[in-house]
């Protein structure tokens, strides 16, 4: 267990114990595919949503766009339709005049996979990606004229994946070099979501520098959060594509995708195996996850 060495703090023995018993749990529950009973008696998991946010603008932040589009493609491939995905891209990379490959976005220098494809629907683009719009999407408090495709219409049976990438720091995430989303803003929004029964379970993935600090203020139950680095650490890009001229993917997202590319819609992999696949020496940072708010054991398929 690569994690055991790196976890700091007084809860180390507890975490040790937990981590040792988790594989046993996984083995036990791996055979039975049925998910355990929901935490609230009325809500049954019946739909999945994804909110994918890229908060960086300008050509040199190509990799953040590629991160988000990689997750978009993965999430679509594993079964969530466009109507249930809110994609927010802060700039246009595919048809950017500096892009040598118009309408194509790559996350690997071998250019094997065109992330943009033929069928992509971006719900918020360009100047619309602001902290205000992001919080409105999460809490569902829009003006009356906003169309349905731009709203997160989740209910108490929804499992939501929230993925954010961009530049961040201690307790904040930068939006378009102009404004910031603070960790307590995010915690407030999630609390509102919980009170309005807008999700049953929420998985937050953050790929920025010092990502773990962004969800340090969360208090709502049913939330699982994973960040690409801890406080004081940077998240690094994976490799530079000398043809396009900029880095094309970040390390955390690259390894996440490497895990998901082996799956299809019918696989039964668990989150625990995802977390175990993160090797700090490959990431050059510590992927930190916070599961104290999450009641179930980590045996759940992402897309189901």
């Amino acid at each position: 267990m690569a994690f055991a060495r790196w976890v700091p703090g007084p809860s180390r023995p507890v975490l040790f114990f937990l981590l040792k018993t988790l594989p046993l749990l996984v083995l036990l529950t791996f055979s039975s595919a049925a998910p355990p009973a929901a935490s609230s008696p009325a809500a049954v998991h019946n739909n999945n949503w994804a909110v994918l946010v890229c908060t960086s603008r300008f050509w040199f932040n190509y990799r953040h766009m590629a991160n988000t589009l990689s997750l978009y493609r993965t999430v679509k491939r594993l079964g969530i339709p466009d109507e249930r995905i809110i994609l927010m891209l802060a700039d246009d990379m595919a048809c950017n005049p500096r892009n040598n490959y118009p309408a194509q976005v790559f996350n690997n220098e071998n250019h094997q996979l065109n992330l943009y494809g033929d069928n992509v629907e971006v719900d918020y683009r360009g100047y619309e990606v602001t902290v205000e719009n992001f919080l409105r999407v999460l809490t569902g408090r829009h003006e009356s004229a906003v169309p349905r495709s731009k709203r997160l219409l989740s209910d108490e049976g929804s499992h939501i994946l929230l993925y954010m990438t961009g530049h961040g720091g201690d307790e904040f995430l930068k939006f378009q070099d102009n404004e910031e989303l603070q960790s307590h803003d995010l915690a407030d929004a999630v609390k509102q979501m919980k009170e309005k029964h807008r999700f049953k379970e929420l998985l937050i993935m953050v790929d920025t520098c010092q990502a773990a600090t962004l969800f340090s203020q969360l208090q709502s139950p049913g939330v699982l959060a994973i960040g690409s680095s801890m406080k004081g650490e940077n998240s690094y890009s994976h490799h530079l594509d000398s043809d396009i001229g900029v880095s094309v993917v970040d390390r955390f997202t690259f390894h996440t995708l490497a895990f998901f590319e082996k799956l299809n819609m019918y696989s039964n992999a668990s989150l625990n195996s995802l977390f175990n696949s993160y090797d700090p020496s490959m990431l050059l940072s510590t992927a930190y996850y916070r599961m104290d708010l999450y009641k179930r054991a980590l045996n759940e398929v992402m897309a189901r």
Partner: protein
Amino acid sequence: MMPPSTARRLCFLSLLLLLLLLAAAASATADAAAAEEFTEELLLRPLPDRKALAHFHFRSSAPPASAAGRHHHLFPKAISQLVQKFHISELELSFTQGRWNYEQWGGYDPMSTNNAKPPGVELWAIFDLPLAEIDATWKNLTHTLSGLFCASINFLESSTAFSAPRWGFKLNEGNLRYGALPREAVCTENLTPWLKLLPCRDKAGIASLLYRPSVYKGYYHSQKLKLKSSQSLGIILDQTLTVVLQPNTVSGKQLHSTGGQLQPSWSMEHLFSKKLSGKCLVSKSSRVFVEIEKGIVDNVDKAGSDVSSNNDLFVLSTAPDRSLKELDNLEVQSSSLYEYDVNNYNSDKPLNVGITWKLPLIWSCTRAPYHASRFLMGSGNERGSIAMSFLSTGLDKQLVDSSNDCSIKAVVFQVVPWYVKVYYHSLEVFIDGNSKAISEVVDKIHVTPSEDKLLPGTMEMLLKFPCSMQLATLTLDFDKGFLHIDEYPPDANQGFDIPSALVSFPEFNSSRSYPEADPLFVSPLLENFKEDGVVKSYTEVLLVPLTTPDFSMPYNVITFTCTVLALYFGSLLNALRRRIGEEERGLKKAGILNKRGLIPLLIAKLRGQKVDPSESESTSPASLPRSKLLLKVVFVAVVAIVFHYLSNS
């Protein structure tokens, strides 16, 4: 008891009546069900500057709502709901990247009049509502379209972004609203929902040719959605995509034996990396046209051969099914169209239309009477000028009398955002370098001045230029305004855009008529060509650099203030609490402090040695401090030199 013949007659009559009723009912339902139609067409044309134009045209039509109800089988429901909810009678939405090159690609034909659009997003709509409700409906419409087409069209909702021209854009009674976003990006996410409005999407038919990297690698691409709705005709939806591409062929660079350079020979496969393998099965007709323009036709005539698909100058790769010749006013043949019916082709025998040039050829496309362009003048962040120039292209006006009364009318429509405060009284006109009075040139002008943060400045002008004029220039002065810090976009230092101005020439008509061989069916593309279209051209978008504040100032202010406060409070506390020299006096009292110097004292203290007060310096007091000073200086110099060498190695 009725006689048997009468009974039989009655029976026969009732049967006949029943049959008639059934037939009527059947025809009625057949009429209603068959009235939703879909046609798809593609037009290919070689351009003089070695590029190729491809124009996709899809038309869906739905009968009036009262006849068909709310069920559609071909027409996109999203559009019919849009029309009904917002009471739209006409709407046009275009997404464009690139600039239409009027010099090379023409400005006088229906293609450039209808499909040359300004960069970014342009939306205009005519509503069938009382005037007071139109602004609120426009706002809801922009939001709905932004959700439908994945674009930020919702930025047109505020009153600072749209305008209501009366006659400069299109003649109306005040129910037209116009808005443009010059900086909107156009990419696959705008094409995806646009294609989903077609019955076959991009899976079959002509739309299957749309290979996205080819489309977006072009020099100009513009997708347009135009709809017209009326109670009598129902809704007609025209979706067009116009792309100008550089065909990637090897033969493009060959030199011909005569010394000239051949135009590149291309085919559909070169343009789109695909061949057309059949039509969309629900389409009423599916055709591909190749247009050979007047310039080429004239050259072929000069070379002596007739304009067939295989002549001395070029040859088409597949024999066309039909060829149509355009007849202009004087019954002289100008351009010609070669038509291919996609019904005759399928996946075993795909259609790959192409053109191969045999001889080098140079031709030019007909241009609009004036080439309109716009630019900024002035420097600095306080004021500037917008200048619009009209350069004559030599198109003769077909008027008998060439006296002083000959004039060419031009209508200019321009919307300027409020932060570029135009002074309309400063309008000056220069014709061939000479300043003219406004009343000589401007026939009619309607200005809606801008209001800060409320309205943009709209200008509609009707100008009359003398026929003999070569160059006209109009200038308008403006002041640059200030925005609130929250109103600046994230990349504020790039500048702010003034949308394209529209220049139209009402006396020039760009319609073309092709005599249709098949009277039963009219091609929508050719129908559009036949429509009376006024020659129009759009000018460039202007980029105005405005003063931007130093966005790091809030951070700087906080840092400076905190530093100042820290220094102030620090020194205040020091002044209040610390007594200077107290420690020294205490030590002196104890007799500890001697003239040994601070560093040895510190070292001794560190070592924990007790400082012996009886020790005292015996050497002369004057030279020792000086030698000590020298030693210290030498020590520091040695350390510096060592550090310098270590850092450089």
